[in-house]
């Protein structure tokens, strides 16, 4: 592997200073499950590896009713699915935290890393979009907030400028009668890259959808927020027909490619199937939250 130096800053400010000092020559290490593979494979070059796991703001999970849920960008998946608040309030997050990689990967991989890596197939991103998550970003000029759906810009690219650091992810407190679910399709049952995935959230009111959000994995250069699919459900009765319409919209919106994991036709088809199935589960969860 290429030669690099290692730093382990203890504060956001120190990390930002290192990142701006080394610019393009620096990369951030959280769980390392993507970045170390990329460095080793020569797909990415870095002279400095900045380990951000010991920065408190990147390492905490915090919940309160007023501001919602905050998950530090470097919190590994297992801490998310073992967190009692997340278990109770954000089952959609549990879905993804427990299916990224296998047990060992979940011991290291983080939602923040999954987002920053900006793979089209990122499992965590569609559900974060569906849950209206936002990203807290620190830089030399202070902080800014970006909606998750605006964070990734192309495969492997994101909005972070040189010297910027993703600190944490924020999820609004779940609305009454809401539910969310992430469903992906893989040929094996574990250890696989999504052929397609659908992250959805719904809010119900007396048998009608109040609102809904749908986002897809692996069918576009970045996770695809299909706003029109969710909008099509708003105000509609909860029924197989309305869900089917939203699923069909998701299918039409998908712009996948042919590759070793699937064909265009198959992936578009999966978007319909997965969106439909995920919406049914989300509805069930919303009803249970009654």
């Amino acid at each position, binding site marked *: 592997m290429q030669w690099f130096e*290692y730093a382990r800053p203890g504060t956001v400010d120190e990390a930002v200073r290192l990142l701006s000092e080394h610019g393009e020559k620096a990369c951030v290490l959280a769980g390392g499950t993507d970045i*170390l593979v990329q460095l*080793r494979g020569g797909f990415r070059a870095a002279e400095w590896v900045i380990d951000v*796991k010991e920065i408190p703001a990147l390492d905490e999970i915090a919940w309160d009713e007023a501001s919602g849920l905050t998950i530090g960008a470097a919190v590994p998946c297992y801490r998310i699915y073992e967190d009692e608040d997340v278990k109770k309030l954000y089952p959609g997050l549990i879905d993804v935290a427990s299916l990224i990689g296998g047990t*060992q990967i979940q011991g290291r991989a983080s939602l923040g890393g999954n987002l920053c890596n900006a793979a089209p197939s990122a499992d965590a991103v569609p559900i974060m979009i569906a849950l209206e998550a936002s990203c807290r970003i620190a830089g030399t000029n202070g902080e800014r907030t970006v909606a998750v759906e605006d964070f990734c810009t192309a495969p492997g690219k994101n909005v972070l400028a040189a010297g910027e650091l993703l600190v944490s992810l924020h999820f609004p407190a779940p609305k009454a009668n809401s539910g969310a679910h992430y469903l992906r399709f893989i040929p094996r049952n574990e250890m696989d890259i999504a052929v397609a995935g659908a992250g959805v959230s719904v809010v119900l009111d007396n048998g009608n959808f109040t609102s809904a959000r749908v986002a897809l994995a692996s069918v576009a250069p970045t996770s695809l927020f299909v706003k029109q699919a969710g909008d099509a459900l708003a105000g509609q009765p909860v029924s197989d027909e309305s869900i089917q319409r939203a699923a069909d919209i998701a299918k039409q919106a998908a712009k996948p490619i042919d590759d070793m994991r699937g064909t265009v036709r198959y992936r578009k088809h999966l978007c319909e199937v997965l969106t439909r199935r995920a919406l049914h589960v989300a509805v069930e969860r919303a009803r249970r939250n009654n």
Partner: protein
Amino acid sequence: MPRRVHVQTTINGEEIDFLCEARQSLLEVLRDVLGLTGTKEGCNDGNCGACTVIFDGRIVTACLVLAVEAEGKQITTVEGIAVGRELHSIQQCFLEGAALQCGICTPGFIVAAKALLDQDNNPSEDKIRLWLANNLCRCTGYDKIVRSVQAAAERMQEVR
């Protein structure tokens, strides 16, 4: 000589320090620097589980951890599973249950299974299969591995 980093850590209960390059993985240092070759390399990208170690209480693949990250951590490798001359129940059950053929994946499975049984002494077959899905075995078809983990769980309950 490129700059090396001094790391202090605890491996199998013993305080150890070593020098490494930042680019070296924990797997490399365990095997090439510390001589703990029980931890195996099968893919070097986190997909086979042969290099599974317990890292501050959680299993990880040592190929996806930098050795410098071991600073101040508690690490358990396969060499630390048996207590003295006494095999761990999992090791004993793997032997009795013929859960290994070539044996290259065995250290990873034993470490992963120990971490599972430490947190759940009566896992279902499904839970065992899910927990171990990051550990590939090409010889056994997993049947005897899963049965041996079940047998170890029973034995550990009896002991308690």
